[in-house]
């Protein structure tokens, strides 16, 4: 607990589905359902999963950008969900987010310098002069030029905009950055430069990342530990090498084998999952994955498996994985 910068315990986020004349709540979308993990200072935790698995909602709920349904989050040994708004505002300086779409996450009518310094202004940090200085330094740090502060977002390419998004998160000197699909919208040749930048910044500033992505090869590159999500739950969480060399959960195994490898000599037999991901508003009973699981047994259809440490440091939620 001492070394853990972020502790997430049984986090739950349900979204109501309203309908009828009275707009009553008719059902719930179980976007995040009982998710727990911890992150040490300076570590990168990757969260992977397919669309709709709840990985982005997890990130947003931790930051209180959307209210939680239940569960607890400790950041720096403070219970985030019990903080009042002024305390929360103070702590927001330490918690920053980088968004997926560098096109829609910047205000098109604001010059880039203003966008970047908005956080500083909101927190009343520095004089206008000093703020301009910070913006200029940060822009240089992310590989842009100081004079770019006077330009508008449309004058930049996708990769440059993502650098601006990173600069905006950095000006607050945060401890934790939640990066929500930061490179998914970028071309491969640009993607690698942004990944390298995130890597360098982490080393320099001792940053801690939650890196949310659907691309396993990107997550593998950047993460120390990786959590695999399926339909609102983490099904497997392990150090990177353990996860890739010895995946325990059938979903992780299928996910890893689904990825086309850029090497024509390695065309391989895949585990092809049947069907689609079930709806989060009507998840199957028992293990959420049993409808597509190639090895499911009767028990999986009734009993929800616990998320347990089956091997030291390697958590899995599956009845069929032996505890060692």
């Amino acid at each position: 607990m001492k070394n853990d910068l972020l502790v997430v315990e049984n986090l739950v986020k349900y979204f109501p589905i309203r309908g009828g004349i009275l707009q009553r709540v008719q059902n719930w979308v179980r976007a995040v359902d009982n998710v727990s993990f911890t992150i040490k200072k300076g570590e990168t935790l990757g969260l992977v999963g397919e669309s709709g698995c709840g990985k982005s909602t997890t990130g947003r709920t931790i930051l209180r950008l959307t209210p939680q349904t239940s569960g607890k989050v400790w950041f720096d040994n403070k219970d985030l969900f019990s903080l009042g708004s002024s305390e929360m505002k103070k702590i927001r300086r330490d918690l920053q987010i980088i968004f997926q779409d560098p096109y829609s996450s910047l205000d098109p009518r604001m010059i880039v310098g203003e966008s970047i310094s908005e956080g500083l202004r909101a927190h009343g940090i520095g004089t206008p002069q000093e703020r301009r200085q910070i913006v200029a330094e940060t822009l240089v740090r992310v590989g842009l030029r100081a004079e770019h502060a006077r330009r508008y977002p449309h004058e930049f390419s996708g990769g440059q905009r993502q650098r601006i998004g990173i600069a905006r998160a950095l000006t607050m000197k945060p401890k934790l950055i939640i990066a929500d699909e930061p490179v998914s919208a970028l071309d491969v040749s640009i993607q690698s430069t942004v990944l390298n930048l995130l890597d360098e910044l982490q080393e320099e500033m001792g940053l801690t990342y939650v890196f949310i992505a659907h691309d396993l090869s990107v997550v593998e590159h950047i993460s120390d530990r990786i959590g695999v999500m399926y339909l609102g739950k983490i099904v497997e969480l392990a150090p990177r090498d353990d996860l890739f060399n010895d995946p325990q959960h059938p979903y992780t195994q299928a996910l890893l084998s689904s990825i086309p490898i850029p090497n024509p000599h390695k065309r391989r037999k895949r585990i092809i999952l049947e069907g689609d991901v079930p709806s989060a508003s009507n998840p199957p009973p028992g293990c959420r994955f049993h409808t597509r699981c190639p090895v499911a047994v009767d028990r999986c259809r009734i009993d929800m498996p616990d998320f347990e440490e089956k091997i030291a440091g390697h958590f899995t939620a599956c009845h069929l994985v032996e505890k060692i």
Partner: protein
Amino acid sequence: MTKNKHKDKKGPLLDVKKLKTYFYTEEGVVHAVDGVDFHIMPGETLAIVGESGCGKSVTSLSVMQLIGQPGEIIEGEIFFNGENLLAKSEYEMCKVRGNQIAMIFQQPSGCLNPVFDIGYQVAEVLEVHQALGEETGRKRAVEWLSKVGIPDAEKKSSAFPHEISGGQAQRVMIAMMLSNLPDLLIADEPTTALDVTIQAQILELMDKMQDQFGTSILVITHDMGIVAEMADRVAVMYAGQIVEQASVFELFDNSKHPYTTALLASIPILGERKEKLSTIPGSVPNLVDLPPACRFAPRCQVRLEKQMTRCTEEMPPLFNVTDNHIARCWVYEDKK
């Protein structure tokens, strides 16, 4: 059926020569496709790979002649089964599209008409091209839906596009496109909008369909993984031109063009750890007002290392590096 008769012939199924498609915009003329040559043999899969804006999609749309204003095919020839498609009238092209050449797109759900059920939409293709009656068309459509792995096809055929998932929508598109047994299937980023486990399903389906019907496939993608998985031959595009073309093994083992090499080195590969990813400095050039020089030159490390001056002065042609391996780079000039 008069289809697939080309299989006795030795020539290529599709032969694109010196294709140029420009867009006349207010900012100037965009050279989206600027002199592209490639061919596809019967039963073969060719992948065109490149980053966004390199002209790979415009190339495929040009083959189908689906280029709208302000774009125009200004030069070139597209031979399909020996006939020049560019010489055909719009009426004649309608008989080719969806019949001999079929195309699937990136956003499958956007390609389906929201007000008709999926069975009707698959049947429509059969009714138009094979002159089937409504009843037979519908029956055949249901058969095809089950062939592409739509569960409970009979019932599902009356589902509307909003009631099916993205993966299923792509299956419906594939059913629609393959039901006329086309000679060539153009797949423009067929799985980009899909999740990896669904992508694996669709790639396997395309593979199975190719085995079964001998369809040639032109796949357009930015994903080197899909290229390695599907293609027999690969053409790499950069800024409107093909910069390298080779067999898939040759390309991945022995890439010659500095862009291809740099691109392959910059992708993180599952199971291969690197401390740092190599990067390509700079960004893709604006396709308006291109100088008559190598388009990759401003970002090319090889040019800097070898201190080559010609790259910024003259456009390199495609050089034969080895048999069936061509690269657009002055480094290989002596091999011409």
